[in-house]
């Protein structure tokens, strides 16, 4: 049986198009992608989605269970907290802070880290070695500790928590992007570009950037995951978002004492964090596979 019947007159697909065509075949990853888009939309436009204001108290319906449990009602799908505030609305707002914060951090750290990493990889001598040792030292400080230091200095607040997490994740990201770029630099075609007399920027833009897609997807995914976990952790410990703000971690912390009375209040935010991380990871894993297969 002949498979290639007729001359293949399709245009040669662009690499990105090719990756996309591979990605499309991975159903789970595509589903994850759509879920991610939904999540991002929710976190961007949370105030327009929620049925109730996250701060609106209702003394008549305190500690309602979710609607499928006896005693719950459909007005509050996920029930209410101890002040009668709607859990679903608070969850959406929590997503806005947690997921939104993580996105901002990822974007910020991603760009800055990539630039510094590239600069470190492309320069040699004193500058690079100073950067190196500084990175070594910073990497030896666990992110939670550096976040605690920065928050102690600046004082606890949501913004400061984002800044602290960015700063504590930055060294890790620089290191990973540096390693990825350096690995790429040792390859033959980079030498060829260098021999062409390309400038550093040109080398980076055309030689390196298109070829570190796979490691970049991995480290950005990791960065994002860590950012979410850190935001929630700091929120939980009381160093992040302060109380009226409904960050997911601080939601869990503030409902902890109610765990025997209304375990849903602790369960749902945790599941939300869990789901967000799973979705992002499945998406990026699918993307990574597509990139890998595309390169093969």
């Amino acid at each position, binding site marked *: 049986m002949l*498979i290639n019947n007729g*001359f293949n007159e399709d245009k*040669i697909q662009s690499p990105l198009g090719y990756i996309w065509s591979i990605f499309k075949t991975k159903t789970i990853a595509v589903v994850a992608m759509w879920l991610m888009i939904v999540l991002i939309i929710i976190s961007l436009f949370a105030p327009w989605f929620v049925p109730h204001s996250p701060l609106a108290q209702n003394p008549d319906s305190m500690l309602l269970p979710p609607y499928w449990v006896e005693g719950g009602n459909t007005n509050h799908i996920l029930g209410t907290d101890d002040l009668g505030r709607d859990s679903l609305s608070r969850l959406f707002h929590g997503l806005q802070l947690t997921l939104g914060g993580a996105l901002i951090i990822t974007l910020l750290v991603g760009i800055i880290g990539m630039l510094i990493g590239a600069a470190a990889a492309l320069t040699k001598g004193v500058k690079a070695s100073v950067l190196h040792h500084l990175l070594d030292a910073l990497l030896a400080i666990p992110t939670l500790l550096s976040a605690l230091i920065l928050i102690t200095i600046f004082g606890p607040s949501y913004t400061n928590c984002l800044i602290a997490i960015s700063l504590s994740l930055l060294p890790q990201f620089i290191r990973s992007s540096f390693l990825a770029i350096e690995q790429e630099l040792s390859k033959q075609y980079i030498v060829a570009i260098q021999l062409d007399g390309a400038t550093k920027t040109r080398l980076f833009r055309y030689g390196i950037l298109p070829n570190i897609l796979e490691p970049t997807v991995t480290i950005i995914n990791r960065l994002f995951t860590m950012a979410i976990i850190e935001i929630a952790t700091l929120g939980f410990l009381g160093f992040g978002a302060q109380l009226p703000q409904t960050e997911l971690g601080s939601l869990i912390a503030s409902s902890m004492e109610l765990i025997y009375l209304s375990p849903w209040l602790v369960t749902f935010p945790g599941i939300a964090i869990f789901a967000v991380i799973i979705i992002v990871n499945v998406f990026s894993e699918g993307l990574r596979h597509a990139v890998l297969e*595309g390169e093969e």
Partner: protein
Amino acid sequence: MALLDIRNLSIDIDTAQGKIRVIDKASLNIVDGSIHGLIGESGSGKTLITKAILGLHNSNWTVTADRMFLGKTDLSKLTHKERRQILGKEISVIFQEPSSYLDPSQKIRVQIESVLPKKTWKQRFRLILTKIKKVNVQSRRLQIKELLHKVGIQNDVAVLNCFPHQLSEGVCQKVMIAMAIANSPRLIIADEPTTAMEAVTQSQIFRLLYKLNQLNNTTLLILSNNFANTSNISDYMTLVYCGQTVESGSYKQIMGSAMHPYTQSMLKTLINNVQFNEHKAQLYTLPGNIPSSNQLPIGCRLGPRCPRAQKICVENPTLTTKKGHSFRCHYPTKVS
């Protein structure tokens, strides 16, 4: 008598863009005791053919063949276990870049030992005895030493105690050959054994292979992209283009009366090297490029580049065989 007889071997690979037929009806007939050259440009599918012979293909390959016999065993119908009995004992393989084909975490000694025939229980018992009583039995050490000497490694002790990354490519290849001949197989497949080696080492290796063929009567299948180099030691040759075996025959038949335009073009490059051209004249090549694997033409894959191609070439030509000289071409012509 044919040691290896393959007819109409096809390999399809599943990719994201659908199935691609990478090997299209390749045929290979290797005479016992001969040196057979399988010649084609890089990416023409030589290695794929050997992988199919060895049965080392991935799960997303579909291998079909009308006939695939090694001596009297049908290679296409072997179970895993039966195949393992043949590999290493009846067919051995030598690869290009030999250092990467040696386990980096084991010393050469261990690696060679592992391919030697399995110890019987009696031998093992003796081995234990040696350790206790220092009884002098004919040890494996001696066996290994002999092997290494056979492939021309003199300082065997030093080499045996090395890790692969401490040795040069040439020595590694010799070790590989030593491991390949350890079980005196009937067929040795050498997959571009000299690529990326210095000229001196290259000729050493070739001489070694030639010697093996002459002394032990081992059949050799040498895969190469270098027509000039390989043709010198080959008794028979098969040319591959884009997964299709285009022509195959004895040295004399190929060199003297090549029928396929691709073979002829190869010969032209060879002859042009021997006879001096005019000053500043262009060296001969076929026009065009090798198509990429997802853009293969139908029918005769040389079609778009063939100087004699016609409409009918979009169909795959049938195999024509005359006195062991076979080719696939709609318009075969002998060039004087």
